[in-house]
């Protein structure tokens, strides 16, 4: 699971109103090389929940001194974009779980795939 995906995932357990962001508990993390595309990164940033991304990156130990708030003119800052690229697309959680911040329900991650299926009673 890449952190870009994590940025979009929320808990949808019945009754939960604050199911985002999911807390990551990782037991295995891998870094995969993926071609850097600056345009992709700079256009993706406005679609992200920046705070959640930085938090997740920090939890995994890959914060790389990314700022808590977005700086202006990041589009031209290639060094910054490369750091974001790494954290969004190259760092992958292979084993672990995602925890709903409100209900505490844990969704397991196996071989990089989060299982978000709910049981009958939770839907």
């Amino acid at each position, binding site marked *: 699971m890449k952190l870009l995906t994590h940025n979009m995932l929320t808990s*949808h357990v019945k009754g939960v109103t604050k199911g985002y962001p999911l807390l990551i508990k990782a037991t295995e993390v891998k870094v*995969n090389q993926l071609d850097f595309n600056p345009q992709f990164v700079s256009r993706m940033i406005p679609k992200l929940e920046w705070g959640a991304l930085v938090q997740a990156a920090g939890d995994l130990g890959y914060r790389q001194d990314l700022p808590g708030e977005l700086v202006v003119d990041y589009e031209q800052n290639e060094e910054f974009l490369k750091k974001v690229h790494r954290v969004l697309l190259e760092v992958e959680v292979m084993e672990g779980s995602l925890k709903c911040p409100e209900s505490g329900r844990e969704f397991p991650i196996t071989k990089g795939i989060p299982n*978000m299926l709910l049981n009958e009673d939770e839907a």
Partner: protein
Amino acid sequence: MTWLHGLWAEDPPVMAEDFPLSSVRFPSMEPEEGCALRCVCGPDSGQETRCWSIGPLLRFPPPNTKGNSRAQNCSGNMMRSSSSLQTIIMSSDGDKQPAEETSESVNASSAPSPETELTVTIGATVPTGFEHTAAEEVKEKIGVDARVSRDRGRIYFPVSTDKLFQVHRLRSVDNLFVVVKEYDQYHFKESKEETLMELQELASKLPWTNALEVWRLNRTLKKKKGHRKGGHSTRAKPDSEVCDTAEQQQQEPAQEQSGDAPDTESQPPETAAEEKLVKFRVTCNRAGDKHSFSSNEAARDFGGAVQEFFQWKADMTKFDVEVLLNIHNEEMVVGIALTEESLHRRNISHFGPTTLRSTLCYGMLRLCKLQASDIILDPMCGTGAIPLEGAIEFNSSFYVAGDNNDMAVSRTLNNICHMQKRRAEKGSSPGLPVDTVQWDLCRLPVRTGSVDVIITDMPFGKRMGSRKKNWDLYPSCLREMARVCRPGSGKAVLLTQDKKCFSKAISRMGGLWKKLHTVWVNVGGLHAGVYLLKRTAGVFGQTPEDVHESPARVYKQTDEKEDD
């Protein structure tokens, strides 16, 4: 009622999951993926199975799925056992070992020198309905205008020999061939005898030279590709950029193993040794009511004349040259194949029961006019064919593939890993912009309005799901997709065969979805629609259908009659 006479291919069996697929070659037939097959003779007589992939080789799990031991030397007669039985014609049994014999060089007449650039017409078969998308891709990548044939699923365009390698970069084409001659209005004679005689006479009069030159050039292109990465190819067949999938390793290795090409090192393109023993076959596709002959009769007689003329050896399974005879009403095209097996399965090594052709996936992706950094969801990804094609071909976007089914998720993961390994082997960075999640598509664990494009193959109700289930499934998943899709700019491209159910569901969601365009396609013999939808600017939960009535009540129906 007549029968298809197929020949068990002698290749080692292809693996799918954990059982081997049998391969049968039919000299000429209308392809039908997913069609049911029944063995009508031999030890497996009476057993049923289902076709998994088509092309020169029809593949299916052998009725006795534990083993493939009988595939070696028997010929199986197969009949399509759907409710609408078609007549299919017996072909001659070509399962013989060719005798070693010298034959004349392929240059029957003077050939242009290798330096001269030729311009030839290339024909391509594409998924029906996506002819214009394919023409767009040709314009974009080769820079020429393509013509869409009246014979659906075919486009034609001119290419000069120096640009030939570019045709192998096309992602929307299933098969490629070079045109020998085209007849727009061929006047077939009244009687079968006269028509077939005329076809035979035609063989020696056609302008073969340029087409054969292109065929030869194409072969060397493929060989060069195989050895470009410094002898990495441990496979028998050269690694063509577009053609290699694990499945194709055991394809009839027409070029390297047929005993006539002497070695596998890079060689200068034209050597006399290569021309010594050319093996060929003729494949005929015929459509139209006014013909007095069958496709097999045409193939047989035309093929006989070709053999006479060139002194080639006819071989149905291990051929070098495949001559194509395409007849559609009064249109007739003679061509030579440039692709050995349909390119449509290129990305997938782990098949599922309803895996979509990569060429169809590509067509659907092109429809959405993807932009950089678009976030694309396939909430019913199956084996991941669509997201994978997207991650490779439109790689400045990001794909999330999801399914609720364990096997689907596992296959998607395997297909992605397999692709990454191949990329690593070729020296590119392995990472692909795609992730997989296991989820329930009616309860997507995704933030509202965070997705730009949804593109998926919806359950057809025949091979997966059921008509009754679709009545409930379509509205709920369309709503959930509307929720996660970005209002105003979001899009959806949805493939479905259940057009009635889908249209009805969409018509009740005018506040959320607007139909922009529909492409009618043929998927495994079933007529399906690819619907391009636009997400309205309406905020989810506040559109008229939510304010006035609950969707659940709207869909209380008496059971729809289950057809077929």
